């Protein structure tokens, strides 16, 4: 087993699937010779050829749309959008076509494609490089919306995404790309999609998060553990379709829930989870569901970036409010 960081795990999953499935092709800006601006596709063009690892001209609409055509024709395209800030020209293709090709044709044509994109704040990147638009895609029927929170999760979930028969939007947290390493067995084993992962078990409360914010959430859980308060920590991983059962099961045990995400609050995906708790778990709730989120503001440029991102302090304050509620 190798110690990989998250971006290396993405690379390993792509390489594994390129090697084992001749239908897999990669396309995107700067992904070939340059290996991607984050090096997620490093060495893949040299290894698998420029016909399967395509450097495209600068055109997100065409990248997403061409992937749909490739997928319908039996390929398994994995398209990269260089940053989620530049995914919007592709929205027409994703929303009007990728998500509904199967439905429109009653399964005659399908769209087994993956759209990968680095997302999130915290690396002092330029303007439009720090947003978290996962709720936008989780809102679209017919899509899967997946976000890994660690190298091993990235490896297994990306393999699952490529093998999935339907379109998957796969957001990679830039803040975690090189933050830490983990043992990753490059054995081609996929993780389940459509399932949350309980990454830590406890009895007093439930934390729910995904992507990079899982770091701060775990830090807060550590501090509470030092005070004798134990928490379930759930990594949502696949936001759509949502495995509400795992979250409900945890909250049935703990009665208190704090949801943490870095996207803006209004219409953020935390609201969907909170609604699910109210709809299906009201009787087990001992306190109002708390959300710790980015503010409803444009993600600030670097100098205020960390005033925007939920901090351990904010998560702890929400946890205490949930714990103290009588």
């Amino acid at each position: 087993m190798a110690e990989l960081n998250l971006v290396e795990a993405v690379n390993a999953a792509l390489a594994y699937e390129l090697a084992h499935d001749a239908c897999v092709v990669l396309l995107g800006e700067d992904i070939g010779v340059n290996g991607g601006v984050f090096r997620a596709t490093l060495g893949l063009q040299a290894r698998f050829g420029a016909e399967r690892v395509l450097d495209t001209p600068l055109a997100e609409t065409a990248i997403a749309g061409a992937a749909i055509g490739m997928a319908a024709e039996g390929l398994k395209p994995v398209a990269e959008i260089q940053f989620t800030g530049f995914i919007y020209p592709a929205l027409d293709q994703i929303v009007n076509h990728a998500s509904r090709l199967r439905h429109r044709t009653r399964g005659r044509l399908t769209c087994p494609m993956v759209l990968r994109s680095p997302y999130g704040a915290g690396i002092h990147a330029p303007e439009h490089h720090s947003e978290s638009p996962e709720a936008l895609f989780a809102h679209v029927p017919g899509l899967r919306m997946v976000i890994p929170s660690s190298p091993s999760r990235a490896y297994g979930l990306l393999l699952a995404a490529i093998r999935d028969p339907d379109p998957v939007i796969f957001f990679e947290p830039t803040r975690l790309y090189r933050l830490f390493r983990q043992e990753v067995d490059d054995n081609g084993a996929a993780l389940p999609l459509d399932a949350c992962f309980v990454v830590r078990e406890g009895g007093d409360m439930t934390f729910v998060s995904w992507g990079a914010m899982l770091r701060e959430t775990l830090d807060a859980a550590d501090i509470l553990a030092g005070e004798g308060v134990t928490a379930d920590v759930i990594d949502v991983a696949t936001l759509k379709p949502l495995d509400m059962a795992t979250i409900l099961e945890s909250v049935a045990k703990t009665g208190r829930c704090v949801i943490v995400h870095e996207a803006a609050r209004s219409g953020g995906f935390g609201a969907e989870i909170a609604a699910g708790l109210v709809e299906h778990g009201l009787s087990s709730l001992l306190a109002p569901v708390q959300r710790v989120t980015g503010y409803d503001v444009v993600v600030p440029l670097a100098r205020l970036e960390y005033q925007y991102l939920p901090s351990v302090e904010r998560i702890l304050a929400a946890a205490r409010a949930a714990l103290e509620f009588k």
Partner: protein
Amino acid sequence: MDRPMNADTDSQNVGSRFLSPAGQVLQRLPAFAQDPAALAPLYRAMVLTRAFDTRAMALQRTGKLGTFASSLGQEAIGVGVASAMLFNDVLLPYYRDHGAQLLRGVTMVEILLYWGGDERGNDFSAARRDFPLCVPIASQVCHALGVAYAMKLRRERRVAVCLLGDGATSKGDFYESMNMAGAWRVPLLLLINNNQWAISAPRSAQSAARTLAQKALAAGFEGIQVDGNDVIAVRAAVQNALDTLRGGGGPALIEAMTYRLGDHTTADDATRYRAAEEVSRQWQFEPIARLRNYLVNTGAWGKERDEHLQRECAEQIDRAVDAYLATPPPAPAAMFDHLYAALPAALAPQRDSALRFASPEDKRDG
């Protein structure tokens, strides 16, 4: 697929040119360039742009500035364009255009603040109608179309000038706006900085079109190529185009042929995808030495004046850097205070929370 190669910016097809790379006059100079002494301000602006670039790169390397996009080798474009514009025209730049922005009156402190992660850098003290630089590639072309339409509607003699890269001409935003600009006959100049690369994508892989200028033909107006390393050629072509636009004959497109001598940005390493020989060969065509050679040949410029100019630029930049570094970070409330004309009541609790949890020091900063 073959690994595509870029042609020399000196190969036959660089469009109109007045000065050879060695600074020899190739054809009768335009009126503004008849007196060599009158070219000194253009020379100065290019030297200042490069000196500013160099300093910004150094600030980035020492952790005092965020990612930065240098305009090394492309100084003639920003200077040629902005020097031909009038004050109340509107510039819609992208991230490689601080040369043009400086001439438009945007201050160095403002440019540094922006790249240092502070939105106040976009609140230009001069150039109040100019757009902030655009990061999502080619999206500014659509805005430029609208700006130009507003000018046309009000029967003004103002023009909109939109800068974009060679890579940007592959995007729908560019094609759609160019087409509409042609249909509407608006006073819009599209100026393509064809620096032969879009990060790692060479011009030859970007499009099979023989020139980028010819794309305008399909939209019903003329596109021309100019030597983007010859500031006289850029300025002459822009001035000519703007005169036409002001007279009601628009739009126009100019493809300025140049070369990106540096990395794409400070986050890039161009040695991964292009040969060092290609870059070193391109240095012989760069715009500053070219104009200096001409000015020196005519006796309008000399070593002493050059040294003086370098010192003057360095001092001006020193003052700007000092002021930039002395600027305290924006207050956390600034995240909220410019979002709407007035802060909606629903947002007040979030603003309070932001102030309550504001950390004086950026604890997680690396």
